[in-house]
């Protein structure tokens, strides 16, 4: 076979493989959306789930998902930011930091169900937090920390060293240079990383089944005192999320319209995750534009 034909053949195969990937993705998304979107209504998005009769919604699960996401980011973002800054800007390149990096990589490939069971033993049982939003948020933090730390570290590593030199040459300290020059310059990719990890957290189920629990008690949306157990903000109440709800309906749902609820909930979940991805791209591009040109 001559080089030209080999090249043509290889190009053809690559097109086919890439096309296959796109096709599978489109088919999957299309199926979920076609099945689920007709089920979505304002009533479906806002009313509580019904265990035995038809017509239940996903309102509380949806709220729980966002609240858990918020708390998980609130805990993991500062830690990841600190760790990322330390690893990229301060840590000496020796075996110890190499070990830390390897550990982070291993942690990030931990199956989420393992994280969930660890969270159950550690937060739920050992620390007596019970099945609660707090346990769930901590489990999600364990799940999220390694990935977010990596992405922040990479965002910082992509900032040219000449930016740091510029800061030092103006008599700025390393801390000033990092916080006022390097981190702002890396902000577009940091935010992209945060939003992408938000999408992952939002769709996570296995890590939450044994930590945030599988029940969604009725909430009193007129009570915003986080210390009352029926308040939506209470971190000590059990909180089934959207992803857990989908898993639960499909494994043990006994409501007559279980299939429809599951389809609708899946569509909402997919749409939310897609939105996170688009938001990440849009925000990243916008911020980058803002920084590079008017």
């Amino acid at each position, binding site marked *: 076979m001559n080089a030209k034909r080999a090249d043509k053949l290889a190009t053809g195969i690559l097109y086919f493989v890439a096309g296959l990937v796109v096709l599978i993705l489109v088919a999957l998304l299309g199926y979920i959306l076609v099945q689920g979107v007709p089920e979505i209504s304002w009533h479906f998005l806002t009313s509580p789930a019904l265990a035995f009769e038809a017509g239940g919604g996903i309102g509380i699960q949806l709220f729980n998902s966002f609240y858990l996401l918020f708390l998980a980011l609130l805990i993991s973002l500062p830690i990841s930011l600190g760790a990322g800054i330390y690893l990229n800007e301060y840590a000496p390149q020796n075996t110890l930091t190499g070990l830390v990096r390897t550990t982070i990589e291993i942690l990030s490939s931990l199956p989420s169900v393992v994280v969930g069971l660890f969270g159950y033993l550690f937060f739920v049982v050992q620390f007596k937090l019970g099945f609660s939003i707090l346990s769930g948020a901590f489990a999600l933090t364990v799940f999220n920390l390694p990935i977010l730390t990596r992405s922040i570290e990479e965002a910082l590593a992509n900032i040219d060293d000449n*930016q740091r030199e510029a800061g030092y*040459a*103006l*008599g700025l300290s390393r801390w000033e240079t990092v916080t006022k020059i390097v981190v702002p310059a890396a902000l577009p990719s940091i935010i992209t990383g945060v939003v992408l990890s938000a999408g992952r957290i939002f769709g996570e189920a296995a890590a939450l089944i044994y930590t945030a629990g599988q029940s969604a008690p009725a909430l009193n949306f007129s009570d915003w005192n986080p210390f009352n157990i029926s308040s939506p903000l209470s971190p000590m109440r059990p909180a089934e999320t959207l992803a857990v709800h989908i898993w639960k309906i499909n494994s043990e749902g006994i409501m007559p319209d279980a299939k429809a609820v599951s389809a609708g909930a899946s569509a909402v979940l997919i749409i939310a995750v897609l939105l996170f991805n688009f938001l990440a791209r849009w925000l990243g591009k916008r911020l980058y534009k*803002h*920084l590079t040109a008017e």
Partner: protein
Amino acid sequence: MADNTSMTTDQRNIMKFDPKAHEIALSTEDLHVFYGKSEAISEGDLQFERYKISALIGPSGSGKSTYLRSLNRMNDRIATVNGKIMYRGLDINSNDIDVYEMRRHIGMVFQRPNPFAKSIYENIAFALRQRGMNNKQELDEIVERSLRQAAMWDQVKDDLNKSALALSGGQQQRLCIARAIAIKPDILLLDEPASALDPVSTSQIEDTLLELKQNYTIIIVTHNMQQASRISDYTAFFNLGKVLEYAETGDIFTNPKVDLTNDYISGNFG
């Protein structure tokens, strides 16, 4: 020429200033720079006169950039610098020196323009604000004066809030010069500031430096011998980590005392 190189490395001709007639802004004594175990600078003792432009020339790897970066201790975390760097009677290479404060007196401009990902105004005002200058009017004045000194005020005065990254390479480099002089250093170190620029921008930068000479002591590393001869008062020739010749620029280019200098400036190597 290779044989010639090994034969003549002992030949050196280093000018020393008469302290009564010349004011020394900066000098190095017994300076040695190591990267790990390999010695990058073994003999590099020079004196720099105040309000003059001194050029450091030499082939790639001769140590001229390493030398320059040692002067305001930009090499601190990369290399080991032994010896003294004397500035106003102080050895600024000692551990007791506040490096950050020292760098406000000895500023630096780099080879590749490196403006911050901030507005043109903020590029200049930022470092001042970090040191507690918050008076808007004062900041405005300094920004304007620095940009004027860098000969770019008229081009950017209406775009001060635009991102500095949208400027052309030559403008970015002049912004970097403006940024460096805004904090009013005594000495300005420039590491091949025009090597990434086109000839027009290069000549503008050279004009700017000749202007700045009235208020600043300038030390510039350059690959471009025409540039050294056009703008500098003194020239030092580096080779293999040693200064081989240091003299008035006119002498270096017309009547070098060291054979290797002659070879280099006539384009026989490097």
